[in-house]
């Protein structure tokens, strides 16, 4: 039971670090952005995990149900907005990648650095 209760944290750790690995080790800029979005999703997952309650349901009040337990609405609010903000900022990142490609004709980090050093 202990393992089931903590499995979400394990998944959070692995997802977070998978995204982080893509960010630091991969050279491709789009791959880095995908890694960033995985990293972000891991955080979303942690927050939503914290919001659940045993025997609870989504925090939409049902007047007919007495003594109903509801999940914590606050983390859900934070994550709900963060998802949309996440896609908007990822689009900004992609836009910058597209511009980099137009300037350097490459989206590989090491090649871009080499070109920068040469000029």
């Amino acid at each position, binding site marked *: 039971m202990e393992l089931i209760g903590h499995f979400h944290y394990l998944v959070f750790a692995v997802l977070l670090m998978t995204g982080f690995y893509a960010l630091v080790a991969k050279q491709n800029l789009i791959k880095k952005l995908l890694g960033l979005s995985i990293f972000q999703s891991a955080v979303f997952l942690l927050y939503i995990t914290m919001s659940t309650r045993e025997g609870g349901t*989504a925090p939409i009040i049902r007047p007919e149900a007495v003594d109903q337990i509801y999940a914590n609405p606050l983390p859900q609010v934070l994550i709900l907005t963060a998802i949309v903000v996440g896609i908007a900022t990822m689009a900004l990142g992609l836009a910058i990648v597209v511009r980099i490609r137009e300037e350097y004709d490459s989206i590989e980090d090491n090649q871009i650095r080499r070109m920068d050093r040469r000029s």
Partner: protein
Amino acid sequence: MYIVASIAILVTMGLALTRALLGPTVYDRVLAVNMFGTKTVLLLAVIAYLYERPDFLDLALAYALINFISVLAVLEFFETSRRRAASDQSPRR
């Protein structure tokens, strides 16, 4: 009974994911994503009943409506890249 249905759907999701990981062509992956999408709709519908909150079917409805946009986007992606390969060989600015 809902549980049996959800287990069948979950197993199918696993199979679809395996297909998406195996490939071998990109079309197989897109096929797997599409399949995964329909299975998600079914899973969400069944779980909404399992939780006894049918008002959450909105979610499955949203997926049923917009899931195929990504497949069409893939089709358009292929068309665009093919058209570009046909029209000019020179690198585009």
